[in-house]
């Protein structure tokens, strides 16, 4: 039996395609649906003001560069500031979040101590708490200590991410052999040294995945910065784009600006997504990232 299984091991090898092209066609339709708005904005952003309303939908225009320079001039270049702010919130937040999650996950996976389950359940319970129950009081508390409408008010609440701690614990359990820790201990390594030299390097692929998911989550967050910030110099892209739309929805002359802004704002994440493909995993139990 073993030989039969081996012979047919590759999924392609036994593909008989009994349903013809139907499965492929359905999936391609899904792909088309998902690509439609992105490809549309790619073309719409190249059109000049006149072309946007006159030329046919999928004909590229000639106005991309002037659209970009219009966007760069909008309110003294505030768009680029939004971009930098977003990078700061998402990059800084995801970095801190990954560090906190990895250390917590390691402690929960590799130490046994009183209260371990209680702490784990408390932290994980946060998954079920809707953001709204947190965002409004967080704003009120931040304004009491004078930190509302600052970078901190957007950065700090997004560091703790229950699901990342959960993933980090699973990953640490699978990726760090107990024997290795034990050997280190016998050699006289302290807890911090073991964390730095043994645990974290082994957890690195899992940490990259946690970083990416958290980076995207913060990059895409709208509610928290929308509630926290009033000063448009501190806005991330999501809130900035929203204000751009709110200002320009009734002025078709601003549509080019909004569309170009939308296009530019989605390019970095799509690039990150396409280049880091092998780390986009939703299941870290496997222990190691397959390449």
């Amino acid at each position, binding site marked *: 039996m073993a030989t039969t*299984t081996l012979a047919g*091991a590759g999924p392609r090898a*036994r593909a008989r395609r009994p*349903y013809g*092209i139907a*499965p*492929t066609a*359905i*999936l*391609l339709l899904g*792909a088309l649906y*998902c690509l439609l*708005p*992105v490809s*549309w*904005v790619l073309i*719409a952003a190249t059109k000049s003001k006149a072309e946007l*309303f006159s030329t046919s*939908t*999928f004909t590229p225009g000639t106005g991309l560069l002037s659209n970009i320079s219009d966007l760069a001039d909008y309110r003294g270049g505030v768009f680029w500031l939004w971009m930098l702010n977003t990078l700061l919130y998402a990059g800084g937040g995801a970095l801190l979040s990954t560090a906190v999650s990895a250390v*917590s996950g390691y*402690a*929960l996976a590799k*130490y*046994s*101590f009183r209260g371990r389950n209680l*702490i784990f359940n*408390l*932290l994980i319970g946060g998954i*079920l*708490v*809707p953001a*709204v*129950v*947190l965002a*409004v*009081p967080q*704003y*009120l508390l931040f304004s009491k200590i004078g930190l509302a409408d600052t970078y901190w008010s957007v950065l*700090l609440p997004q560091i*703790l991410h229950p699901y990342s701690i959960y993933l980090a614990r699973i990953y640490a359990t699978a990726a760090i052999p*107990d024997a290795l*820790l*034990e050997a280190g201990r016998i050699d006289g390594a302290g*807890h911090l040294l073991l*964390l730095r030299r043994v645990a974290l390097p082994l957890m690195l692929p899992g940490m990259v995945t946690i970083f990416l998911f958290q980076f995207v989550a913060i990059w895409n967050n*709208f509610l928290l910065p929308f*509630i926290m910030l009033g000063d448009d110099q501190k806005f991330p*892209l*999501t809130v900035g*784009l*929203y204000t751009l739309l709110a200002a320009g929805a009734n002025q078709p002359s601003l549509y080019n600006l*909004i569309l170009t802004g939308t296009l530019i704002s*989605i390019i970095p*994440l*799509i690039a990150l*997504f*396409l280049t880091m493909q092998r780390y986009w995993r939703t*299941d870290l*139990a496997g222990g190691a990232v397959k390449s």
Partner: protein
Amino acid sequence: MTRRRSGGARDAGAVPYLFLAPAMVLFTLFMAVPIVYTAYLSLRRTKVSGLGLGKNSRTEIFVGLDNYSAAITDGELWAGWLRVLGYGLLVLAVMLGLALLFALLLDSAHVRLARFSRIAVFLPYAVPGVAASLLWGFLYLPSLSPIRQVLDIDLLGTGAVTFSMANVAVWGGVGFNMLVLYTNLRAVPRTYYEAARIDGAGEIQIALRIKIPIMMPAIILTTVFSIIATIQVFTEPTTLRPLTNTISSTWSPLMKVYRDAFVTGDLYSAAATSIVIAAISLVLSFGFLRVVRNRAFGEG
């Protein structure tokens, strides 16, 4: 008894607590305290004495469950719940249905260009909700829409707006859920299917009888997360609002919380409503888990 505990850290002492300290401090500051503070606010109200002028004329008093009874009898909030219910059922059914279908098709080995389709369907995950709503919002606009050139419907009109909004959420969410389910399927040893095939099972039977039951925990997980996210719908209606006058400022319960807290300045009602939203999402998530578990045991 002699079996060494995981990690063998016998004299770790305070070390694990120190490692967990950052998470616990953040948990206390940004989760526990805000939740307690919301609950506290939800039981209070401002009382205006005299003409409401002067320094001490406004005092905060304890009003028990008054804010909750106001929230429960608020017709506008109910209308919001009904809108979100219709929208949510649509989103959950279509998004999770498509995610499941795509995951099964990708896994079925009868598909060409699988890699391309997988990347394309996952791509919207990288597009922020605001940008997605904006893109679709413009695609719905009569003056720009390629859809409108084919279909003669006002996509942002009273009848269609729920569907149009659901479409934005489905578009943004199907890829992530598909990936969760697909990852889950790839972990299943292929030999399971070989045995079924030898017994004469077709691909559809294998999908229904083997793959879906194996994926059940992941399906349940994605459903619970989707329920929580859908109840809190805020970004899509808020972003589409400037483009149409069919979406009110209290379209969803969360939008009403925002308006109460920051536009009309009624923090107490906002607090009570957010606790109600949290309670409803907890009840729905646990209720769903329970129904699923009962059914699973009932069949076995």
